């Protein structure tokens, strides 16, 4: 820094000193974002493929099962190891976690594990295979041992298979889940569909008003722009509350329709706590993200072009379709991409106004994080969603540039 006073540095272009200073300015934030944001994402992704609970609690059982050929029931030493380690897990209070993990692969295992461990407490010696089969029938089923073997793997693709409705069979082959357990692909699909619908609605509503603002004289344009920015700045929870107030069965719109006699008091419309609620509220929330990029592109389209088209004999319709629309396409692309990216990961609004059939994939991630506590699966669903967002984000950067993320 001693030589920094020399003015030479400023005129010398990107010299090594300037580069170093630039680097020094950027590094703190890069480190900060790396630790507070990127590292957590990595942690989540690691959790989606790494699960040591069973392997840590039942190390010998798992390693003996690894050598087991998988046919019939495992040999006596496996039972002996399981007896010792289940007992230990009960004392260490890790049994519940272990049982929970195995239970996800083979349902009913939770109670089998707890009951077996409790019974084993009073038994001193084998033969363990007989002891186990005496405690619970399930131990005579090879599927139980396959379940322990499979959850005993520290690294597993199980959660990702699960996230796309697939499963690995004991023989190692990968197949689709049985019909009644295929829920996630359908949910991903629904999320894409609903997000596309919302993007389209935003474009449909946003294009004309962006055009109106771009055409208006500056003072009026500013006023109209404020009308777009008010919802943009207003708390998301407030906007969602507003839609509950408007749309619920005893809400403002239903009351109005009843008063006007358009519907009977017993025929009130169900406009919220379902997919309609999700779509209406999300369109409202995301509309400014469509209008602002559209407006910033439309503002740069010279008015003369439309006038020229008209003077050359084009009808307003032709002039719009052949002159204006093509020039506004960058804005259409930027706005649509941004709205779509934000829509597919949206959580708060669907969670509050979506009811049971208006949930998107984000709601499922929250469910596995907070209720089922299947964090591996939550991580895998998040990983799939993150990949989708990342692809769209890179696309956005290529087409628009991330630093032009539509604000004012």
């Amino acid at each position: 820094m001693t030589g920094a006073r020399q003015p030479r540095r400023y005129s010398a272009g990107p010299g090594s000193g300037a580069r170093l200073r630039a680097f020094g300015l950027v590094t703190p934030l890069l480190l900060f974002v790396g630790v507070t944001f990127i590292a957590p994402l990595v942690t989540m992704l690691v959790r989606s493929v790494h699960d040591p609970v069973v392997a840590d609690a039942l190390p010998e059982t798992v390693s003996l099962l690894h050598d087991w050929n998988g046919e019939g029931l495992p040999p006596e030493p496996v039972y002996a190891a399981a007896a010792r380690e289940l007992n230990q897990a009960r004392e260490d209070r890790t049994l519940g976690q272990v049982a929970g993990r195995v239970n996800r692969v083979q349902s009913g295992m939770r109670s089998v594990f707890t009951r077996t461990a409790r019974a084993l407490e009073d038994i001193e010696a084998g033969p363990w295979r007989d002891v186990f089969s005496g405690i619970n029938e399930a131990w005579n089923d090879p599927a139980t041992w396959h379940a322990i073997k499979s959850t005993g793997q520290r690294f597993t693709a199980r959660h990702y298979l699960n996230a796309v409705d697939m499963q690995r069979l004991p023989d190692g082959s990968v197949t689709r889940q049985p019909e009644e357990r295929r829920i996630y692909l359908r949910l991903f699909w629904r999320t894409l569909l609903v997000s596309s619908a919302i993007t389209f609605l935003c474009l449909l509503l946003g294009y004309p008003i962006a055009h109106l603002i771009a055409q208006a004289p500056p003072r009026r344009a500013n006023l109209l722009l404020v009308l777009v920015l008010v919802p943009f700045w207003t708390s998301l929870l407030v906007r969602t509350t507003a839609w509950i107030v408007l749309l619920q069965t005893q809400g403002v719109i239903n009351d109005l329709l009843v008063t006007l006699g358009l519907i009977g008091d017993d025929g009130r419309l169900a406009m919220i706590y379902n997919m309609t609620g999700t779509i209406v509220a999300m369109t409202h929330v995301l509309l400014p993200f469509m209008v602002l990029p559209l407006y910033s592109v439309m503002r740069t389209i010279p008015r003369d072009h439309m006038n020229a088209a008209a003077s050359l004999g084009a009808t307003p319709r032709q002039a719009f379709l052949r002159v204006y629309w093509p020039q506004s396409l960058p804005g259409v692309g930027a706005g649509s991409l941004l709205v779509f990216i934000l829509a597919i990961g949206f959580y708060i609004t669907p969670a509050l106004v979506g009811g049971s059939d208006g949930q998107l994939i984000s709601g499922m991630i929250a469910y596995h994080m907070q209720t089922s506590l299947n964090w591996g699966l939550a991580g895998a669903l998040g990983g799939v969603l993150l990949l989708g967002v990342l692809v769209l984000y890179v696309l956005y950067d290529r087409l628009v540039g991330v630093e032009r993320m539509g604000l004012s």
Partner: protein
Amino acid sequence: MAAATGTGPGMGRIAYLVFCAAVFLFLVAPILVIIPLSFNAEPYFTFTEGMLRLDSEAYSLRWYREIVENEAWRGSMVNSLVIGVSATVLATVLGTLAALGLASPGVPARRAIMGILISPMVTPVIIAAAGMFFFYSDLGLGQTHLGIILAHATLGVPFVVVTVTATLAAFDRNLTRAAASLGAGPWTAFRRVQLPLIAPGVISGALFAFAVSFDEVVVVLFMGGVEQRTIPRQMWSGIREQISPAILAVATFLIVFAALLLLTVEWLRRRGGGQQ
């Protein structure tokens, strides 16, 4: 447009204006409806007959009184301010420095760095919050103010970087060179010449960052305990559990607050942080 449509407003033009008016109504009306309803004397979410008759009996401040007297709401207000201000300071300082660095010529991998710094803006919050829940708990930052401040600062960073970068793009570097040629060191040139000129952009970025934290609920939901309840967190449980018009009183307060933020940012923008 008038030239293109010929003499007088045609049917098409009228339909277009009516449609636009309807969209503006769709944007603003839901927010405005909340305000009168927050003065409802009855515990309903809709206009009572008395309210429609503009009967003064039908209006009251009871929900505002309830909020002010409620310990939980007051606590959440303090939490929101403490967390919001701390996260804003952190995001603004780090974000402004980084934007300055990124604006100077010859920064290696500028595009990739920008991509990383702005990514918190588009990453679904549910994913970020899930990751943070694991990672921050491992560091012992789960259920602490500090953990949430760090998380909120990260979510606010992109807004600061974007806003300050846009302001710097319009900044004339010759001014810094002129200062340098007159003998000012880099720090003096920055403080006396560049900073005053980019200040509106920096303040706008800070207000964005504050608004992000002030409205954030998912991270608080995942990482916060009872001690970290913020206003949005409090509203979240209000909406989900015992929905009462007290929520509308808080919402009205937040609407007024948002309007003030918006007007400030617009004013700063027009004062020209160099932006058009």
